[in-house]
């Protein structure tokens, strides 16, 4: 009896709260959020009130003090209704993880509560025109001048930048040191020298209001340095949160939404005098979809379980993210095949699912980056 696949009663309760909220509050707005491409503050605040933001932040810091698995279950449910809205949660959790791990007491005091309450959005300003997954290539600079750092640089694709009140900016204090000069800084939105570009017109995850962030002689007090000045490794530790498993759970949720729609449709729709589910071509697709969805769930749960038990989870997380992302794109495509013409109409959510799916092979480390990480971990295991 070494293995137990049962969720605890509490995990089920938490999942069910998220499920109900997703079905009743988010799903009816999902199409509108997608079409308008607007961040939905009322939903974000309600999720804060419910306690869905900061679930994995320790209780003594005002968070939920919950396990990674509970959080993954919530992300999965929210993502079934809207990938964009689920991204509000994953980004917030990552930033909270960053600040709670690296932040000084003052910084935690000041910023954790408003983010957890859903009053403040914090964005992550790392990606640059020439630096995405390769953090070492970051060109933004932070120069210490007396009591201040002066930041300069350009950040790209910054999710929720237009609604953020706070940015975690990644910059280099000494470009000569390469990646060892990388530091992170807390930069409030109204800091002179920080400006935002035009909202990106994205294919999917619309409603996340991503935009470029420009830093021009942006002066911030020295205390806004996040984490000690110890360098790159420390910065990376801040990123070692549950975020990537959340991304995998988002892919899982979206795949499930597509599957649910296809399954329901296959049982309602009749062609040639038969319900189409009775055709082998259709039911085999559904059988396979369901199998792959379960496989992704297994990988995610295992990685979450390892994290919750203090075991290494880097490889498992990347495996889960890699598999779930690819799987999601396949399943949405399969579901479209079953729905046929209906799936192509904007009247139904499937075309949104299709546009939302591809991001799962791109963000939070592309498939290729995940493979690099997995391969690196494999090599470590050999040693």
């Amino acid at each position, binding site marked *: 009896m070494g293995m137990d696949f049962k969720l605890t009663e509490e995990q089920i309760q938490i999942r069910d709260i998220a499920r*109900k909220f997703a079905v009743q509050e988010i799903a009816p707005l999902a199409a509108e959020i997608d079409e308008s491409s607007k961040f939905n503050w009322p939903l974000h605040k309600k999720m804060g009130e419910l306690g869905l933001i900061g679930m994995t932040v320790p209780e003594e810091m005002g968070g939920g003090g*919950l396990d990674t698995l509970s959080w993954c279950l919530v992300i999965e449910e929210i993502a079934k209704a809207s990938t964009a809205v689920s991204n509000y949660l994953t980004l917030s959790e990552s930033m909270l993880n960053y600040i709670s791990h690296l932040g000084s007491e003052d910084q935690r005091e000041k910023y954790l509560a408003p983010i957890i309450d859903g009053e403040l959005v914090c964005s992550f300003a790392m990606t640059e025109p020439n630096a995405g997954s390769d953090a070492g290539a970051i060109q933004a600079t932070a120069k210490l001048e007396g009591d201040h750092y002066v930041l300069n640089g350009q950040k790209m694709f910054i999710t929720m930048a237009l609604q953020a009140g706070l940015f975690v900016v990644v910059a280099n204090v000494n470009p000569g040191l390469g990646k060892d000069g990388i530091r992170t800084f807390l930069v409030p939105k109204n800091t002179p020298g920080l400006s935002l570009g035009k909202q990106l017109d994205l294919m999917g995850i619309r409603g996340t209001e991503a935009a470029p962030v420009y830093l021009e002689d942006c002066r911030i007090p020295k205390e806004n340095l996040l984490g000690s000045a110890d360098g790159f490794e420390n910065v990376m530790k801040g990123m070692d949160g549950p975020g990537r498993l959340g991304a995998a759970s988002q892919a899982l949720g979206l795949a499930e939404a597509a599957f649910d729609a296809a399954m329901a449709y296959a049982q309602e729709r009749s062609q040639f005098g038969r319900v189409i589910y009775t055709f082998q071509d259709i039911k085999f697709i559904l059988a396979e979809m369901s199998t792959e969805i379960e496989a992704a769930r297994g990988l995610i749960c295992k990685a979450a379980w390892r994290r919750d038990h203090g075991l290494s989870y880097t490889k498992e997380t990347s495996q889960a993210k890699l598999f779930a992302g690819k799987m999601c794109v396949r399943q949405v495509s399969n579901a479209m095949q079953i729905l046929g013409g209906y799936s192509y109409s904007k009247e139904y959510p499937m075309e949104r699912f299709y546009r939302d799916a591809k991001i799962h092979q791109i963000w939070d480390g592309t498939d290729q980056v995940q493979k690099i990480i997995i391969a690196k971990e494999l090599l470590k295991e050999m040693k």
Partner: protein
Amino acid sequence: MNIMVCIKQVLDNASVPKLDPATGRVVTEGVETIANPFDLNALEGALRLTDVHGGEVSVITVGNEECKTVLKLGLAMGAAHAYLVKAPDGQEQDSWSVSYLLSRAITSLGPFDLVLCGKQAIDDDSAQVGGSIARLLNMTQVTYVEEIQEVSSESITVKRAGNSGSEIIAARLPALLTCEKSLGEPRYPTLKRTRMANRVDIPALDCTEIGADPDRAGALVKVQMVYAPEPRQRGELLRGEPEEITRLAVARLVEQKII
């Protein structure tokens, strides 16, 4: 202001209840349960009152240990206290006995300014417990409350769905109200309160503790049989030109003197 809200655990209405052919009763084993929706509207109404006027909301139910689930939900939504009333062993329950047990329990736990119930439970659709409790407790009784308008230390003004329209009623406290859905969509339980509720040790009160006579706490109305109503015959499906099929349908209604 102190408010008691009575909650009933009912079968989840997402699916049609199944009949056990052997017993002629509804299958309850292994079926999902929920809190009676109207009771949650009542709870929401109570919480809104204490949000504004202060005081505490308590929740109570009659049943077995499993019924603690609805009490935990009540706590997770914002109730401060929860009580389970254990029905005496071997006694079948009906609206009367539940009213009796609740009235005794409320007396022993009170005083309360208000007692709130849903207008009816969605399983037996009886609409009976609220009025009976009110009489047993000699409380002012207002049923089918659509809206709470004003509260003072002595009275409450509500809008009630009467037989020939809505009535605005000023009722003396303490009062028992049964509540319509319009009293408020139940708030979501927060994660924090949900987990807190899991750790609360909910007291289970028996007849002695609430001063009830176990011999009176049995059903007066006995169920003889439960059965499915005659299924409706599937009728005629009309397809084609909208105008044509509509005229056809109207003609059928006229032919059969339905119009």
